[in-house]
């Protein structure tokens, strides 16, 4: 990675973090998420444009507030309907400006904001999107595509959820113990969804996703500190650290896709893996064992290759078995089939793959890629060819597409 890319990444990460810190800070005091976003949106855009070139300012929050200052006053002045919120917004802007220029660390209310977004009074379909937008700064169109709904529908859903927070006056606090674990699941899901969005963009080509993975890891650390006795918060952090550790090995210098089994283990980040192992071991001492812990354990078994030269497919298959029982997502079922193929041979893998409902996987690219690979190994060349073609057609990532095309032509070459 060259220095310019580094600077862009750092700037994007800092801008997003400072922006969401300010949104959370203003919203915590006015309860008006939409007004806080409106007031800061131009400043955020300006930061994304200028910081990569000029560098991240010494006090990023102060920079954003100074840029947003007129807008804050504007929003406050024109908003006669909700004048109490407007007056608070103005006061808060002044207070925040002092905060930002003082030596003290800027108060971080983002986790509180996440828990509000997961409030049971919010429409269940709006919770995760709301978190992605308010805390991670993703736009409605990007979120809509991740949730397979029309951007206008998603936009409306988000607007309604923010109005509910403001008008019904949902408490801006981390919930009581009894409600905490229920809402924690939604928060962890959103953090993982954000990580996934950043993860898919392996090349770091999309500026809107830049730094999202690091941001998600940061939020998981925060969640873990907040609820140290919840093993799933640790499980999620460990899972993301294992995956992130492999980032440098996922593409060649030329940008070509490298499948996990072919990755150069020397490129994996040892410190990140060590931290993941430690966090996962801590989680293992707590009950119950949830989905994220199982997924992290699977990644841990994959990283065995760095020390023993071979991934532990026996344990990976066993762990997928538990995962498929705990959280039978399509991804888990496909992982199970792939691990069975490694552990017991392509026949066993194929049988597990065939058992997945066809309607679930018709347009799910990883299914077709795994299926093509297993068919090729079983010598069913014509079917493998067709499955590769489907997988290529469904691929979103150019490097993945090229990789599959290469596999398909190797098949033809016999």
């Amino acid at each position, binding site marked *: 990675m060259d220095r310019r890319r580094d600077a862009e990444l750092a700037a994007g990460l800092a801008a997003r973090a400072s922006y969401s810190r300010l949104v959370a800070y203003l919203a915590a005091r006015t309860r008006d998420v939409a007004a806080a976003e409106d007031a800061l949106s131009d400043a955020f855009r300006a930061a994304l444009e200028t910081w990569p070139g000029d560098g991240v300012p010494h006090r990023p929050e102060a920079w954003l507030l100074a840029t947003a200052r007129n807008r804050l006053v504007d929003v406050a002045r024109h908003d006669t*309907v909700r004048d109490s919120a407007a007056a608070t917004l103005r006061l808060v802007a002044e207070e925040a400006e002092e905060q930002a220029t003082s030596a003290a660390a800027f108060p971080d209310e983002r986790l509180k904001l996440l828990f509000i977004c997961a409030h049971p*009074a919010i429409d269940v379909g709006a919770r995760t999107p709301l978190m992605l937008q308010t805390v991670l700064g993703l736009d409605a169109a990007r979120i809509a595509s991740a949730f397979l709904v029309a951007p206008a529908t998603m936009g409306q859903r988000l607007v309604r959820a923010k109005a509910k927070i403001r*008008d*019904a*006056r*949902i*408490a801006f*606090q981390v*919930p009581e113990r009894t409600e905490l674990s229920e809402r924690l699941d939604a928060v962890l899901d959103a953090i993982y969804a954000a990580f996934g969005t950043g993860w898919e963009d392996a090349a770091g080509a999309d500026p809107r996703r830049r730094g999202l993975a690091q941001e998600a890891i940061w939020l998981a650390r925060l969640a873990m500190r907040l609820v140290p006795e919840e093993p799933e918060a640790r499980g999620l952090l460990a899972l993301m650290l294992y995956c992130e550790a492999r980032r440098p090995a996922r593409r060649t210098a030329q940008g070509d896709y490298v499948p996990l089994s072919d990755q150069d283990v020397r490129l994996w980040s040892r410190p990140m893996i060590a931290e993941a192992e430690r966090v996962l071991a801590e989680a293992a001492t707590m009950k119950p064992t949830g989905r994220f812990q199982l997924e992290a354990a699977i990644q841990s078994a994959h990283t065995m290759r760095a020390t023993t030269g071979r991934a532990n497919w026996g344990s990976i298959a066993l762990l997928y078995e538990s995962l498929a029982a705990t959280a039978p997502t399509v991804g888990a079922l496909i992982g199970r089939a792939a691990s069975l193929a490694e552990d017991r041979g392509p026949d066993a893998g194929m049988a597990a793959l065939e058992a997945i409902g066809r309607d679930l996987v018709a347009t799910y690219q990883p299914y077709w890629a795994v299926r093509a690979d297993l068919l090729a190994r079983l010598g069913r060349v014509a079917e493998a060819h067709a499955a590769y073609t489907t997988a290529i057609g469904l691929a979103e990532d150019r490097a993945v597409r090229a990789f599959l095309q290469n596999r398909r032509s190797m098949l033809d070459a016999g």
Partner: protein
Amino acid sequence: MSYVMLIYESEDALAARSDEERKEAYWGAWGAYHKALMDAGVITGGASLQPGHTGTTLRLRQGDRQVQDGPYADTKEQLGGYMIFDVPTLDAALDWAARCPAAEYGAVEIRPIHKME
């Protein structure tokens, strides 16, 4: 912040109000709940309503009164009463709603009160 708690009860539950065998338990629970609200100083108003079949619904259409026997919405659970109370947040309001006897056998809806400008 002012909220109204709309309390929905089935006809059968409302019948318990005057049923010899059930009325003591019914009113006992409501009495205790009301006292708790009074003691906390959060309640500012409210009323218990007669059953839905005693309701009369009126619409004015082109100057004509259209009067209809029965409640506005003919549903299994009817508006049985409401309370107005003052608490800082929706979460505090929901805590009170969870203590309402009807939450267990009917439903309660919390709505913020629209403030007149």
